């Protein structure tokens, strides 16, 4: 097992190198560039910029220089924002997205698994219909609708919570609640549906019939015999979902004015801010490969049939 873990961790390195290389070249293939504007720049300004960012060097040299910097942990200067480099923007905003994401995913796990289990155990009763109706709403209503609706009721009508802002805006933890619920909604819905169908599958399996035939109580059967089997598909969903949620959501950040990482994914692309684009891609990829690794480890812990050598 230890050998497998080391092997997997080492395997992450080439994966990331490939991702970085591909994204480095692909962003430069897209038409336009970071310094193209409505008006042509004066010749002298243009020359200065090109010299500063080595734009006129052969692409392969730019790539080599960039990789060298990345390996030292420096994601380079932003082509758009002059005040700070890419590292600064990422490390300033990522923790905010992580806090929000962890809270949101926790909410969706707790409520998703609970309501999915209840729906499965009370299949075709009002409990089932109610939680699945909720799940359909969660899946089909977009975040930019759920967010403002929550703001309208809980911030404007009831005045319980602030409409927007972040810890720094003076309202403290209260600012986290609405965006976290909004962000949790879609994942809650998927987790609830996954849990329901997975649990129904497990409950219909032969080994649950064996457990019943042994005279076991329903509660023991559910917690001792069905839980692991039920959790497997949810664990594999949660890996990538977790990576996605903690790297921020541009919609939720806009609606609730949160200084998160999500906006950089979109803005950097509009700006052709090459280094920032590749920077956020690297952050997301690192988190994703780590999450997939954790999922695989969890799988082997849950299912004894899976062993790694």
């Amino acid at each position: 097992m230890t050998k497998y873990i080391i092997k997997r961790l080492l395997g992450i390195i080439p994966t990331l190198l490939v991702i970085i290389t591909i994204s480095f070249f692909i962003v430069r293939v897209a038409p336009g560039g970071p310094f193209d504007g409505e008006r042509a720049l004066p010749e002298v300004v243009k020359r200065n910029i090109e010299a500063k960012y080595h734009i006129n060097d052969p692409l392969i040299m730019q790539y080599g220089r960039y990789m060298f910097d990345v390996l030292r942990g420096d994601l380079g200067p932003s082509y758009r924002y002059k005040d700070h480099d890419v590292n600064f923007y990422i490390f300033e905003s990522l923790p905010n997205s992580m806090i929000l994401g962890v809270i949101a995913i926790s909410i969706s796990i707790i409520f998703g698994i609970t309501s999915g289990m209840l729906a499965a155990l009370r299949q075709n009763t009002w409990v089932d219909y109610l939680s699945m109706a909720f799940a359909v709403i969660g899946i089909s209503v977009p975040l930019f609708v759920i967010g403002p609706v929550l703001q309208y009721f809980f911030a404007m009508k009831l005045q319980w919570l602030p409409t927007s802002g972040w810890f720094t805006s003076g309202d403290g933890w209260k600012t986290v609640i609405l965006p976290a619920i909004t962000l949790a909604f879609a994942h809650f819905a998927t987790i609830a549906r996954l849990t329901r169908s997975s649990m129904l599958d497990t409950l219909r399996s032969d080994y649950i019939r064996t457990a019943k035939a042994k005279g076991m109580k329903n509660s023991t059967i559910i917690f001792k015999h069905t839980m692991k089997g039920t959790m497997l598909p949810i664990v594999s969903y949660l890996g990538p979902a977790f990576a996605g949620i903690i790297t921020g959501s541009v919609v939720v950040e806009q609606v609730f004015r949160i200084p998160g990482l999500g906006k950089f994914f979109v803005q950097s692309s509009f700006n052709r801010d090459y280094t920032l684009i590749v920077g956020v891609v690297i952050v997301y990829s690192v988190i994703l490969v780590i999450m997939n690794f954790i999922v695989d480890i969890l799988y082997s812990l849950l299912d004894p049939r899976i062993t790694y050598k």
Partner: protein
Amino acid sequence: MSNGNSLKTYKNLLEVRDLRTHFKTDAGIVKAVDGISFTLNEGETIGIVGESGSGKSVTNLSIMRLIQSPPGKIVGGEIIFENKDILKLSQRELRHIRGNEISMIFQDPMTSLNPFLKISTQMVETIRLHQNISRKEALAKSIDMLKLVGIPAAEERIHNYPHQFSGGMRQRVMIGMALSCEAKILIADEPTTALDVTIQAQILELIQELAKKLNTAVILITHDLGVVAGMCDSVCVMYAGKIVEKAKTEKLYAHPAHPYTDGLIQSVPRLDKAHDGKLFSIKGQPPNVIDLPDCCPFHPRCHKVMEVCRHHYPPTKDLGDGHEVSCWLYIDKKEHPDA
């Protein structure tokens, strides 16, 4: 077990009376089990034979009240075990019977054990559910059971997971687990169907041997008449949710009364009888049991079919010595309806 036991006076252990289990489907009501009765005596082995879909498994899941509901429902009848009707027991009383008084083993040993739990966990929990003993004692007892069912190196193997055993070994574990509480009845639902032919005989022998040793009565569900001949004291032949013939095993083989039973016996390949290279088979398909009309369900396939068979289900006739058959051939012509 058929030899010698005939002298012993049997004590009535389980009595199924007019059991009816129906399933509601979109296409209509499936009468999977429709009014069957049989008696199981102490230490006896009875076989229930029939084609797929004849209601064998549903009968036995009904005895344990393990029918998925909905869509299934036991709509009538009684199942008397030790003077109590199982169908009227509370969940608590029912749990006391399941696994303790009546145990069950299933067709597919690959999926019947929980793949996520060690064998030790699964066996110990069964024993501790029904007996007030410590975990350690239960583990020792589980190991003894595994030795009894012929698992080599049981002390180590008990800590393995089901996937580390072969199919035959898993069925042995299932048998050991089912008998770990000295159940009075063992229901074996096609215990060898999913196994290699070479393993089949071993497993059947094991069931037979342990049933004798622990004085357990066995209900053996199978579609294999050869298996029945070797193991069972008496046989019930099921067709479309009903028992069409019931007899002592030797009687049934020597003098099959129902044309269906006759057809089944002739379909068994035999080495000692010359044949022209072709196996006998009953023509036609088993009937669709949705909304069956009140006729003999076998009449479309029967070579002795009469007009009355197409309109009325035959009453049960006792041919003597417990040999019962439901067929118009044995009913006096004068008693036929609208004849």
